[in-house]
């Protein structure tokens, strides 16, 4: 069973000619089939955790370990991590002019699967997955994220999640900026992947709203660059009622 283990992860970022520590010792284990929600206020370091795991060059790991099935993730390049089975659905996916969605998806699937998918089954697979996400087939001929609405970008991220079938999926604020209909469609996509039981999901969110559609097994509260409290789904209800103030104003994270 695939397992992502994060141990005492410290991460810094360069900002305004100063080095700032954002992650201050994160410990977390995500197993295949499990869904972990990471919740926290703005600026708590949630997205830094997501991007650090994916290997974004902006972030420097100063100490700690990350392993996927015992393999050292931090030693891998960004593309190696993806091929090892890590997937990051981004909060702000970038435009890639000149590359059509269909070309991009096929190139990516070829890289991840280690061989080019058979054209006929691939076309069908993409078409059906897009249909389930209520995406117009014409979408495939547009350039990656170019002129996409916020909702289209998120659907496109989840489309990739469904097609690439990672071992560990990190969803960075996939719910932000979505209206209720789009949230439902996107959540259903995530749930289809979860129901296979073959993915471990790390759901990073600011709001509890998405947890009505995607039921987490574990909820972690993130504050001040680390996990300050962990619990079951009931912890989300507590956050819904009480907010993050108890974690940000002195107390636990100080």
């Amino acid at each position, binding site marked *: 069973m695939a397992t992502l283990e994060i141990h005492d992860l410290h991460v810094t970022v360069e900002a305004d000619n100063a080095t700032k520590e954002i992650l201050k010792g994160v410990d977390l284990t995500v197993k295949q089939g499990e869904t972990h929600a990471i919740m926290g206020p703005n600026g708590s370091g949630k997205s830094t955790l997501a991007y650090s795991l994916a*290997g*974004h060059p902006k972030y420097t790991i100063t100490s700690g370990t990350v392993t996927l099935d015992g393999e050292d993730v931090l030693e891998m*390049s960004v593309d190696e991590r*993806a*091929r090892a089975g890590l997937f990051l659905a981004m909060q702000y996916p970038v435009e890639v002019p000149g590359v059509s969605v269909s070309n*991009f998806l096929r190139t*990516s699937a070829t890289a*991840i699967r280690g061989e080019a998918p058979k054209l006929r089954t691939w076309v069908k697979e993409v078409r059906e997955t897009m249909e389930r996400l209520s995406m117009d087939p014409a979408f495939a001929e547009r350039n990656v994220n170019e002129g996409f609405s916020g909702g289209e970008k998120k659907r496109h991220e989840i489309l990739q999640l469904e097609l690439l079938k990672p071992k560990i999926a990190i969803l960075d604020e996939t719910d932000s900026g979505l209206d209720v209909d789009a949230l439902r469609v996107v959540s259903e996509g995530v749930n289809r992947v979860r129901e296979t039981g073959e993915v471990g999901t790390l759901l990073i969110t600011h709001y509890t709203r998405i947890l009505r559609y995607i039921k987490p097994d574990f909820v972690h509260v993130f504050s001040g660059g680390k996990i300050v409290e962990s619990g079951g789904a009931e912890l989300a209800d507590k956050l819904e009622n009480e907010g993050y103030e108890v974690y940000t104003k002195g107390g636990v994270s100080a």
Partner: protein
Amino acid sequence: MAEAQNSTVGSSTTAGSIAVAAESTVATRMSAPPSFDVADFPVPHGREEEWRFTPLERLRGLHDGTAVATGTGVKVDVVAPEGVTVETVGRDDPRLGRAGTPVDRVAAQAYSAFEQAGVITVPKETVLAEPIRIAVHGEGGVAYGHQVVELGAFAEAVVVIDHTGDAVLAANVEYVLGDGAKLTVVSVQDWDDKAVHVGQHNALIGRDATFKSFVVTFGGDLVRLHPRVAYAGTGGEAELFGLYFTDAGQHQEHRLLVDHNVPHCKSNAMYKGALQGEGAHAVWIGDVLIEATAEGTDTYEMNRNLVLTDGARVDSVPNLEIETGEIVGAGHASATGRFDDEQLFYLMARGIPADEARRLVVRGFFAELVQQIGVDDIEARLLEKIDEELEGSV
């Protein structure tokens, strides 16, 4: 007297909102009127409108008369299918200089200095199954040249001009299309790193004739080409496509002019360039002139650039000048985008290795142009060349 419609931003202009001009600013922006005689042009100092983007010192004397032909400048080989006449003629041949007149000092220098010219003739109603291939190979010297390609009425041909090796070359090319003729030209500038190549390419498009041109520039230290189109009769069509890959230290300049001088003609220009490396400099000038007589004109021009690294520079200046409101359409667009670290990260985060990610983006960017060339070996070589350029990148 009304002002000319003369805009230099990525906007589009259509019939209905057009001012009328009595005098062409495209013509008056040049520092001297067109002439075949180099003496009619002052030596440029670099601040003239037509020279302001060009590093004159890298012209190796083509602009000031100091570059003297060495006799071993370039070697030209022509391979033509049966039915085509290939000749080498003297300066006084009456078939020279019909498609257009040199508009700047270097073009006039080339016209004043060449000793022999090539004339390729495709007789009327001859439809060629194979391309005519002109191989221009630089042998390290200075050369001046002149080439004419003429298609008789209803003839159809594809011409590939392939520039390789090292040279300091100023050469003009003329395309003369008879009525109803169809000519596709692919001019590949695949020079060695030190080469300097300057030229004016004039096409004169006959009634109902179609001219399709691909200008593909990869190599050279400095390449400055001046593709120009004018019409000899109504119903003519010009499609001007260009593709350049400008590397560190290279200066690649394409200055188009389409002169809609007769009614009911079409033109469409699309040039795309990728740039990478310190000091890479691409210049694109797209001048389209719709003269007062050219009613029913339909024209569009577009330039797109993709900057792959820091340190590269693009100057893109579309310029549409309209002297009659009675047209079908006229528009232009220019855009320059970057391939940046975030795009690279995004593609890599989907398992795609860095070099393949770059290739994906650049191939995707050029694909729509490459696929239209229709000459298989040239298409394959271009894709190979693009990959090669990318491998040389950081």
